[in-house]
């Protein structure tokens, strides 16, 4: 079963962090179809978070079709995010490593690399939306 943790410094709200952690576990194959998520009460106690926040996160995952709530039984994983893209992670990581090596060779330090990546990522994401 997945164990949640919250980072107060992450910048993401507790609700977003819970959603991200489930998606992350689904993407990496740590959660599989049929797995039960911890109950709202369990999560509320474990990470000292508002039960409404957990409910909201689970509802969002349900809307995305990733989990389904069975009243009185629990919330179960109905779809995983791992299958399609997991195979391409290896080659993409290789590309990224090559790009990182290039960036270092060009004299960029870690901070510049991160800044460059994030601005490019944000710009690209913004163009996709627009």
């Amino acid at each position, binding site marked *: 079963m997945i164990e949640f943790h919250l980072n*107060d410094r992450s910048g993401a709200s507790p609700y977003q962090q819970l959603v991200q952690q489930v998606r992350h576990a689904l993407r990496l194959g740590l959660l599989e179809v049929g797995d039960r998520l911890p109950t709202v009460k369990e999560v*509320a106690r474990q990470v000292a978070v508002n039960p409404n*926040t957990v409910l909201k996160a689970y509802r969002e995952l349900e809307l995305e079709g990733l989990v389904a709530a069975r009243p009185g039984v629990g919330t179960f994983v109905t779809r995983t995010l791992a299958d399609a893209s997991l195979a391409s992670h290896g080659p993409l990581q290789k590309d990224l490593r090559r790009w990182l090596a290039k960036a270092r060779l060009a004299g960029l330090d870690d901070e510049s690399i991160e800044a460059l990546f994030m601005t490019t990522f944000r710009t690209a994401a913004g163009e996709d939306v627009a």
Partner: protein
Amino acid sequence: MSAVLRAQALGKRYKQRWALQNCDLDVPAGRVVGLVGPNGAGKSTLLNLASGMLTPTTGTIEVCGGRPATGPAQLAKVGFVAQDTPTYAALSIADHLRMGARLNLSWDNALARERIRRLGLNFKQRAGRLSGGQRAQLALTLGIAKRPELLILDEPVAALDPLARREFMQDLMEAVAEHELSVVLSSHLVSDVERACDYVIVLVDSRVQVAGDIDDLVACHHRLTGPRRDPDTLPAGQHVITASHTDRQTTLLVRTDTAVHDRSWTVSPLGLEDIVLAYMARPTDAVRDTRPALEVLR
């Protein structure tokens, strides 16, 4: 949904000094509300008015649909844990539970005993011999076992060490999940509130600066940075909360319900702490004119 806490033009004056002024609130039931503000802002005054320990100088306050402390039925609806989680030092834990059973209509003794057992406390122990964390847990037990609709907690974790603080909040959140309690808790630390609460009230200098659903507030506040310019030139829907300028750059914290399209701004998201601090930092005079527009209701 019905309101668990509703105040209209609520005010409280101690001799010459206003501790709370012009307070309008409408908090839906089922929420965990964080009341934040610096020391002396009026947090305890508001909570004492809500619990019926104080009576208003002006305006009205309604809690769970009735005037606070106006009879046994109304008293049974609201649990109140005052600042520093007071208990009776000379009485044992068992005495506290016995007293709870005698004084409360809806007392759940099984729940109280189970909680004390789970905390590993001895029923014969006197409250005066408990640690700060244990005393807070005893006070929380009394508050929960009374099975109120609304539990009010005044700075419940301020005096606790980080571990006891964590344990207290875990138990409180579990109780909220289990008993569908509404909670109002005050704190001068935003970090206490960010996890546990889904609704926040910011109180500064005896006035409510902003109140609303936390996710809504986070979604509609942004930091804008860009070349220096006059904040008055912003579109009508963008309300400036704070502004700072260098000779070349302007940084604004704005509230807006629509997306910021102006390409000259770099728009970055804000955490709850940034937002709360901004409302605390801005001059109170400016607040008076704009405050009603800042309420986020959904």
